[in-house]
């Protein structure tokens, strides 16, 4: 095997192994964060049995968002993100991270145009697309309801 062949082999093999590792890490850390969410949900249900399922689910989101924001503030979450990739981005804690991380970074540019404006550099698209989609879905269901 000459140098060129070897180079080809390395090229073929390297991204694959790396890719497999990122997938595995995303799976493991994402799964663990979801289990933590289930734990919070179960704990809240046990603590406040009078709350209905919807409120528990909303409160679980609030608690997870708090944890995500706090860990971002402490500088832990972004380090985790380096390994976890989508495993830390996709859970709701990652949504909190996407708000707090740029807010901290741009704080030095002023509170209004730095912190407050840059908070939404990633969350903005998420909120705009999500709310728009929900309005569209609501209108479609309303129209279907008129004929049903």
């Amino acid at each position, binding site marked *: 095997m000459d140098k060129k062949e070897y180079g080809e082999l390395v090229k073929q093999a390297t991204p694959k192994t790396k*890719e497999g590792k990122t997938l595995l890490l995303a799976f493991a850390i*994402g799964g663990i964060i979801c289990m933590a969410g289930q734990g919070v949900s179960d704990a809240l249900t046990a603590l406040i049995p009078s709350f209905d399922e919807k409120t528990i689910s909303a409160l679980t989101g609030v608690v997870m968002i708090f944890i995500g924001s706090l860990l971002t503030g402490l500088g832990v979450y972004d380090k985790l993100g380096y390994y976890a990739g989508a495993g830390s*981005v996709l859970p709701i804690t990652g949504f909190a991270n996407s708000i707090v991380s740029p807010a901290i970074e741009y704080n030095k540019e002023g509170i209004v145009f730095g912190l407050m404006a840059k908070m939404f550099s990633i969350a903005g698209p998420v909120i705009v697309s999500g709310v728009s*989609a929900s309005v569209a879905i609501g209108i479609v269901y*309303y129209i279907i309801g008129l004929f049903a």
Partner: protein
Amino acid sequence: MEIFLTYLKVFLVGGAVCATGQLLINKTRMTSARVLVTFLLAGALLEAVGLFGYIEEFGKAGITIPITGFGKSLAAGAIEGAKKGLYDACIGGLASVAAGLTAAIAFGFVIALISKSKPKST
């Protein structure tokens, strides 16, 4: 034993969702904002066509803790509102995620104010 099985399912479903996201990032060089939007819309769409409930029944927090759950809440609120009228159909989605959004904005603001910016190191 049953609780162990529940958490195993949560782990597997949550892990599968995140690994799918990672696969998208690897294959298409998507930014995290795009991945978040994609999964949010996927969650909303699954709820709109009535499939989200089946996945949720099996995977619980595995599908509701990822951003897909945020999309589901938006769609579910809109669908619920549509039963009352056009006004509620339009505001129902945002109303149902009011708690989460308020938390994200308020906690985010306060924590960003008191946190010091750290140099990006890996």
